């Protein structure tokens, strides 16, 4: 097994634990925004889409690259914007939140 692959597997396994740990205390009211936020983060596939699109030359790779970049950008932009719209709604409550006992 190459060193690079070994490193990748290490990141993969550690990320699983971090991913689980980091959201383990989320209250129910944030389930939807959190889902939407993680949805935006997997838009990182745009990095992959740009990598494959960058070197495109044949009609097949050009078509694949174009569609992949378009879909991935939609995921990133739409994901973050829609999450922000949801969380905007909580904005007015932050001040009040501090005076009420947190659950």
């Amino acid at each position, binding site marked *: 097994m190459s060193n690079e692959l070994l490193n990748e597997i290490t990141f993969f396994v550690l990320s699983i634990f971090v991913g689980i740990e980091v959201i383990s205390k989320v209250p129910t009211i944030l389930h939807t925004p959190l*889902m939407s*936020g993680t949805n935006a983060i997997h838009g*990182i596939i745009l990095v992959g889409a740009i*990598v494959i699109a960058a070197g495109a030359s044949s009609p097949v790779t*050009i078509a*694949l690259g174009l569609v992949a970049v378009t879909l991935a950008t939609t995921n990133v*932009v739409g994901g973050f914007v829609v999450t922000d719209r*949801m969380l905007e709604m909580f904005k007015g409550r932050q001040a009040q*939140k501090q005076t009420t006992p947190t*659950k």
Partner: protein
Amino acid sequence: MRTAISLAYLVAAVLFIVGLKQLSSPKGARNGNFIAAAGMVIALVATLPLLNFTSAGVTIILIGIVIGTAVGAVGARMVKMTAIPQMVALFNGVGGGAAALVAVAELLRMGQHPAFTEAFPSIFSIVIGSISFAGSMVAFAKLQELMTGTPITYPGQQVVNGILAAAIFGFVIAVLAVASVPFSFIALMVLALVLGVAFVLPIGGADMPVVISLLNAFTGLAVAASGFTLNNFALIVAGTLVGASGSLLTKMMSDAMGRSLANVLFGAFGKSHAGAAAIAGKEGRSVRSGSAEDIGTLLAYSQRVIIVPGYGLAVAQAQHAARELAELLERRGVEVSYAIHPVAGRMPGHMNVLLAEANVPYEQLKEMDEINDEFKNADVALIVGANDVVNPSARNAPGSPIYGMPILNADQAKNIIFMKRSMRPGFAGIDNDLMYDPKTVMFFGDAKDSLTKLVAAVKAAA
């Protein structure tokens, strides 16, 4: 240069983790989203320096980014708050599709005999990404009501889906063995797309949030797999974070509904079950319905009113009318609170978002555990467009498909006003005994119209 890129990816990964952490606390959630978005920008910019762009490459990247930004931003800005769940499904689906296409492009580039360690993640990404894409589109169609929200089932469905899954598994092995024949990818993609559709069809509209969350985790894993193919650290870490946290979130969501994930996925929930409890209500029992004036008077002279908002309130855009009624009652000295079931609306947390939009004070929103003991002291439980979350058969009818789901104890209030468009069963498709309760008064009509009438009636009751 490589070192700089790796460091930038590390920064991006840290920002994603911090962003996620913030997103799971009410205080920092909005910042968390910005932090994650900043991580995304860093990862994107850091990727550019090492690439060798062809002129066609630059063109398609620019075109793709322009179109994607326009579609994403406009879609996300224009969508009504009630339609947000299907929007999330859509954005998730396109991400899954992109992951599958990236993997296809990589496999094509690798040629006839890719190494197993590269071919395997690519194929994994193609299969999972395609399932996520197709499944999300069906979820979108169901929530957007482009197709029926009730489960679509037929005899032997699970067997057919099982065969599909087995066929995909067989194909994966064949592709790994003979490798890189473009036709085989296409067949594999088609099979995975079909499975994605077939897998979501039998799941009822009320369970879509859980499905979307699961498919969200799938997309994360597909992205991570694409990261292995491209040897890209950012993709692996971000994709895995989403895959892991998404899986946990999926479990939390089905827990909030008091059901197991397997039951959500394979239970064809909301299909009219021939269970005794589901039929019990149909035997011509009578319901009482009241006029706006009667109900308005009752509300005006109550001491404690608990509003139970549901999806009917959301679709009628009645959150502002509800707040108006609540404020009016409060000015008369009535104590008003809102009982928020964990899955009120169509997604956990959805109702909180809608009510916050209407400037309902945060202290009035009570979670289920907090308010359930207060119903017995309430004069009126005002149920606005909710149904399944107050259905007592979840508590006392073991044959009912929602048996075991935690519900709001609205039936313990002294009076129950059930505002509903019709006697039609709710999203889960089950009859509700509470409508036949002697303490219950039905008030039929669109939630917004009805609330507006009640506002007028309460004013008149002075």
